[in-house]
């Protein structure tokens, strides 16, 4: 009886994906226990919630998801506009919408709604994709990105932009146009500079020369690179990182948790994490490659590459090769919202994989 219940519970789950995700969560607990032991119970609850959503999504067939694409996108836009008009200001940025009983961050919803919407859009125009369709998709992408960027929340804006861009790229936008976009993006960079907030400019300048302002804006980057570098190959040992334990690393349980991991577990620990991410992404891309419909392919590919974007932007920032943007380390950083969003994605991947035959039938 119990066995049957268990089997029914795990049936929709993709085993390799589940295993990799499980290892990542285990790893997360190890690191958080060192970085911020008080938060372990809370994060375990977050994990349970995230797994619940994963399981939920895993059994929703892709066709049902397609129906959700337009409403969730529309709701997302609506909420973003609401945030811009009535949002709560916290830490100088307007990101939260107070619904009275809870505060929500609509930009988080966009991380999933965006690829859903675009994948649905390309599925709809599958018969004959015209340049116009790419243009429409681009507009659908840029409206929410602009709304998020002006909150300002550069990290989320980049993630949403990347999610949408991956869909457009995977949908087959021609290389010529991609090259053209790249060139114009480079050309527009100085222009974009003018639109950046002061603190965003400061972060970019800080990346170029963190030692210029060692106690101010450069402090985070300097301290996190010191933490990583001082970890060496084997690390200082779990719970033994002086940079971490003496609070030299800012946000050590959230955005900068990778510095704690690298300091205490060394190059070995960092490499293990890279390998786990690589496996996760490889599995995700495999699912995308074998997906039956345009919608599922694009959705799976985009979600997988979002995992990559999270990981690369965060580790790049903490190790001082990318500017500081508020992107957590996927699956590892403390925090419920990001974890739920990520497992939403994992659940969708599982669903796509599980239902690939059903569609073909």
């Amino acid at each position, binding site marked *: 009886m119990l066995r049957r219940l268990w089997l029914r519970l795990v049936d929709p789950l993709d085993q390799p994906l589940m295993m990799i995700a499980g290892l990542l969560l285990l790893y997360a607990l190890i690191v958080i226990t060192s970085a911020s032991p008080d938060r372990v119970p809370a994060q375990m609850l977050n994990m349970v919630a995230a797994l619940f959503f994963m399981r939920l999504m895993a059994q929703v067939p892709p066709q049902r998801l397609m129906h959700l694409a337009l409403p969730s996108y529309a709701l997302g836009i609506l909420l973003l506009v609401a945030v811009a008009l009535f949002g709560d200001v916290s830490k100088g940025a307007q990101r939260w919408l107070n619904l009275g009983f809870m505060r929500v961050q609509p930009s988080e919803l966009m991380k999933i709604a965006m690829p859903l919407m675009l994948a649905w859009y390309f599925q709809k125009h599958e018969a004959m994709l015209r340049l116009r369709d790419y243009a429409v998709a681009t507009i659908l992408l840029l409206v929410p990105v602009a709304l998020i960027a002006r909150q300002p929340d550069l990290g989320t804006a980049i993630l949403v932009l990347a999610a949408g861009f991956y869909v457009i790229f*995977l949908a087959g936008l021609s290389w010529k146009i991609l090259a053209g976009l790249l060139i114009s993006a480079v050309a527009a960079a100085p222009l974009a500079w003018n639109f950046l907030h002061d603190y965003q400019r400061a972060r970019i300048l800080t990346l170029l020369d963190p030692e210029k302002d060692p106690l101010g804006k450069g402090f985070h980057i300097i301290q996190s690179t010191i933490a990583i570098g001082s970890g*060496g190959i084997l690390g200082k040992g779990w719970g033994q990182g002086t940079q971490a334990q003496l609070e*030299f690393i800012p946000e050590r349980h959230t955005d900068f948790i990778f510095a704690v991991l690298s300091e205490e577990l060394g190059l070995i620990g960092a490499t293990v994490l890279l390998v786990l991410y690589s496996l996760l992404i490889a599995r995700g891309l495999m699912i995308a490659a074998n997906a039956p419909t345009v919608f599922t392919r694009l959705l799976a590919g985009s979600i997988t590459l979002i995992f990559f974007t999270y990981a690369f932007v965060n580790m790049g920032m903490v*190790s001082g090769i990318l500017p500081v943007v508020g992107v957590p380390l996927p699956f590892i950083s403390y925090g419920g919202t990001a974890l739920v969003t990520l497992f939403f994605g994992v659940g969708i991947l599982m669903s796509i994989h599980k239902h690939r035959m059903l569609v073909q039938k």
Partner: protein
Amino acid sequence: MEFKNPQEELERFQGRIGFAGGFVLFCFVLLFARFVWLQIVQHDYYRTRAEENRISLVPIVPNRGLILDRNGVVLARNYSAYTLEITPSKAMNMDAVIDDLSQIVEIQPKDRKRFKKLLEESKNFESLPVRTRLTDDEVAKFIARRYRFPGVDIKARLFRQYPMGAFASHLLGYIGRVNDNDLDRIDDEDQEANYRGTEHFGKTGLEQHYEFELHGQTGFEQVEVDAGGHAVRTLASTAPIAGNNLTLTVDAKLQEVAEKAFGDRRGALVAIEPSTGGILALVSTPNYDPNLFVDGIDPSNWDTLNNSPDKPLVNRALNGAYPPGSTFKPYMALGALTIGKRKPEQTIFDPGYFAFGNHTFHDDKKGGHGTVDMYRSIVESCDTYYYMLANDMGIDNIANFMRQFGFGQRTGVDIEGESEGVLPSPDWKKKRFKRPEQQKWYAGETISIGIGQGYNAYTPIQLAQAVATLANNGVMYRPHLVRYITDTRSGDKTLIEPKPLRTIPLKQENIDIVKRAMVGVNKEGTGARAFAGAEYVSAGKTGTAQVYSLKGEKYAEGHVKQELRDHALFIAFAPADQPKIALAVLVENGGFGAQAAAPIARQVFDYYLLGKLPKDAAAEDDTDEEGD
């Protein structure tokens, strides 16, 4: 326009997925390379940086070395006391904070003034004492209310204390808070690391000269700190090493006798052990209380000291330059014997004046001394003899001979800022003056040089060094105050080896002639009254230095304002055959040397040679005495 071809579509999609996979791999390899760079290639650098982050060195200031007299009497020591300190950068409204504090702990207006002064001179981040020497009661009261005063704290500190107060202040000097000049000196000596945490620095006297001996080796505590700078735990510590103790050649009791002998008169006395150059007493009156300076002197005390007409802050023994008056005569006589300008038995006739060109140089004694040989010229202090002698010797001979005794040169005593004085010579005049007519040396100027007037100007320590050298038969030592330095850790003593500076080429018979005459001064001459009944044989010479040019009028002490009275001088050594002590005394505006200065020398000798303390404190001899 593209038409659907499922197979082609799928292949293209898989191509894109493949490309994306490649891109992911490329980015991860890039990250991996970055980690390798940080964690392997640059590992040592970052490990060091992490250690520097973590470990903070907290200096532990060493105990400053003690200053002891030759018999072990403590002249400068340390005591530990609680101070109430404010860190200006952390306290908001300074006046309000001090007002609130004064409700708990007594803070007098002078404490406030002193604090204001410290505040102006200091950087914002160091904590400054607003009250020192808190009682236990006050400490307890404050601690109970500490939470109300951010940036205010109680600290246990070591303080310098000069237990004898206003005593020997000009030789001990004092310490004060480190200022920019001191920092430069610390920098010059490469002592920055050792002075981390040190707040005081020797400002004058021995405290200044031996600063780096007295300071000691700063200890350090390695403390693990968190990012907020709070100490988490102590990892290791290196104990400080207390500064070296100075044991002086000075005899505190003798110093006290000498200081008391001055009463409230201004002046200086330097007593030297001729055979070593060790200074037995170094007096400059008035004294001041060096304790006032230790934690920043309050403005009212400063004004009192600085504006006093008696100038108590001037070290007269080293920085006052006075004409030596007749105390110059024994050296003139010795010079004359040495270069063969006079024989001891050779006499002159003194009519009471010496005429040179159209100027007449008067002798102090109306009517003159009559027929005078060298012995009588010193015993009676005959001016005319030396007017003639100076004229015969010439300025170059005089200057060259006197230079050997150290006149007009710094003695090299172990106190900073000694003055040079003036040994007059044509060369000196050329350098001293700018206009050609002033630069010329006139033969008439040589005449008054012979009796120690004119441009002659020497510090009391130079006079003491010269008489000690004479007493020591021409073997000259550098006067010094420190006998040995004791390493407080090992107990090793470093003796300040008395090394002769030079031996002046003199004939012993000539020295003996001059010494005999100086014995005569104290036996039957100008010093006889002061030394009446002495149980030892002493040699001396009185002197009076003119402050005010009388232009031929008879000098009458009673008619001249006190500041314009002559300075009284006396040089002496005893016992005459085997000198143990040689000294120079100067009493500013004291009048005749025989009256004002010689009795001080008598008290000092009596105590040093016989252990006899003077019966009456004041030593002024009021009876008139002719000549000097």
